[in-house]
């Protein structure tokens, strides 16, 4: 049941979708991963780290 449900949500049994822009050609899967890495990088810079304030107060 689990694998069938997952297969229904994310159909993978087809050729990958590619973005074309001038000489740049990248699969949708790779573009999504690179996008997620950029989002993670920016979030890591901006989001407060747990316990940081407490450590500052203790100093």
């Amino acid at each position, binding site marked *: 049941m689990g694998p069938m449900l997952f297969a229904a949500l994310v159909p993978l049994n087809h050729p990958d979708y590619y973005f074309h822009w001038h000489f740049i050609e990248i699969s949708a899967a790779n573009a999504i991963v690179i996008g997620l*890495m950029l989002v993670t990088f920016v979030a*890591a810079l901006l989001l407060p*780290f747990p316990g*940081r304030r407490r*450590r500052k107060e203790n100093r």
Partner: protein
Amino acid sequence: MSTSEIDRQWTTRLRRRAVGKIPPEKMMPDTQPSYVSSWIYVFGVTTISALIVVIGTGCILALRGPTWWHGSDIGHFVNSLHLWSVEIFFFSMVVHLWGKYFMAAWRGGRAMTWITGMFLFLASIVTALTGYVSQSNFDSQWISTQAKDAINSSGGGAYFNLLNFGQMLMWHIVLLPLVLVFLVAVHVVLVRIKGVVPPFEDSPSASHE
């Protein structure tokens, strides 16, 4: 045994040199500088954590073999764990690389830390490639027949043959993991010796704001 004889032993000399270079409190520190309290500093250890899962699941795959990982539910599951831990490994490593690049983490005599990280990145790519061609399915056949042209055009095909399954598997499960684990150990020890790179100083105008 006299004291001078003990002093001359290679084990004694090696231990004293190691402890002098990396005292235990520096190797396993109790605290870190306050600037390490940021999410951008967690991606190095995330990468190592993913590598541990990669090696663990790889050991299970090696125990049971391709028939198991292609033909059973639990084999599929462990195979997927191996793949997705590799995805997390590379994902974390790239974010770690970006963070260190923009911090100019080679500052303060940390060039070797940066260089070992660079070689880790390159060795990881080769390890992933040999893994993809060791899957023993149509995907691995496609990747190996495509990638062999790149290797042949570089002149390395005589030594590194993508179509030689046995050679690729041995590189993937013996040689390259040894290289990776060795480089990770050197990388981490260098971080411990030199410490985590501090952020850039505020500019004079910023400090007055």
